[in-house]
């Protein structure tokens, strides 16, 4: 019984420390699943060319251009915008105005990406509904 209590207390202790590190320490920002275009531009010095990370934002209306290897478009959040060169075929739901999380690295001022993840919102409406346009509430 004594040994068991010791085990329980140590397990609790380890769990407590882990949770503390998780919430307070933020583990060098590794918990942040993606950076917004604003943060990505502000922290550009931390991510030298070639270091991979993820940018999440909305696909700017009218910015999508098809290229030989994929697409070029601009990811925005508020006033900040990042030009993205995406290599590959677009995801099924890709369209101007939708949320995307792009994985890749800086190449000069362009974000060169090879992985696209669509971030849709939590609003579900039939096609003829006027409520909520695509992309509302996305990052």
């Amino acid at each position, binding site marked *: 019984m004594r040994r068991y209590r010791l085990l329980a207390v140590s397990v609790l202790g380890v769990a407590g420390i882990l949770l503390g590190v998780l919430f307070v320490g933020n583990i060098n920002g590794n*918990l942040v699943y*993606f950076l917004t275009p604003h943060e990505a531009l502000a922290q550009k010095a931390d991510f030298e060319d070639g270091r991979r990370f993820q940018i999440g934002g909305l696909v700017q209306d009218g910015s999508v251009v098809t290229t030989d290897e994929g697409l070029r478009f601009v990811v925005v959040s508020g006033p900040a915008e990042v030009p993205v060169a995406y290599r590959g075929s677009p995801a*099924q739901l890709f369209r101007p105005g939708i949320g995307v999380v792009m994985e890749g690295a800086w190449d000069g001022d362009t974000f060169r990406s090879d992985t696209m993840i669509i971030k*849709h919102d*939590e*609003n*579900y409406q039939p096609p*003829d509904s006027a409520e909520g346009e695509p992309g509302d509430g996305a990052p």
Partner: protein
Amino acid sequence: MTSVSRRLTAVTVVVMAGALAAALTAPPDRLQGNLQRLMYVHVPAAWLAYLSFAITLGASAGWLWKRRASLDRLASASAEVGVFFTGLTIALGSIWGKPVWGVWWTWDPRLVTTAMMFFVYLGYLALRRATLDATVRARRSAVFGVLAFAQIPVVHMSVVWWRAVHQPPTVLKPAAPTIDEWMLAALLLNVLAFTLVYVLLLRTRVRLAVAEETYDAAHDRAAGELAGQAITTPDYRKEFPNHV
């Protein structure tokens, strides 16, 4: 099969049929089209995972308080069903994620915490097999069953607390649900149907546990009697005839 079981099964089958019809006839989503129908199985499966582990929490706390064997069986049975539905949630989420997000898996907070929940409750089931002593097993797993529940709010709130690709809650959130009312009705009907399936599975699993315990007890008794008969005093004069 008792009459309660039979009636419960009949009701479950009827509600399941209704829920399936509702899931297939609800309007498609404006953005995802028919792919959004996966929500009608993914969300109820996730709901059942939460529910099962909540029942495990309640039964574990109850065992620590009342020390009743039935509560231990309930906690164990619910955790088993919960692990199954957690796995189902991850699998269905993956199938939904591939066409809609573009990936089967990504290191998103909701996905990671759900996988963690899956492994922690697998650990609960492993812990139950770590000892043969029924009381020790019940006590250990009751403590584990209470502690492990701490992560369920984290799983649910992960999409709110951290940046994620997984969308935030549609129904279980402070504001009104942001979903078409027909879709919401279909979803709630599916949640009800899945809950009935859960009750059915849980009852069956608890009764199986009772049957197993009865069998084991009878088996042990029989083995004890047999072993008793087999033991005789050795007749050393017969074994060592030349011994004086």
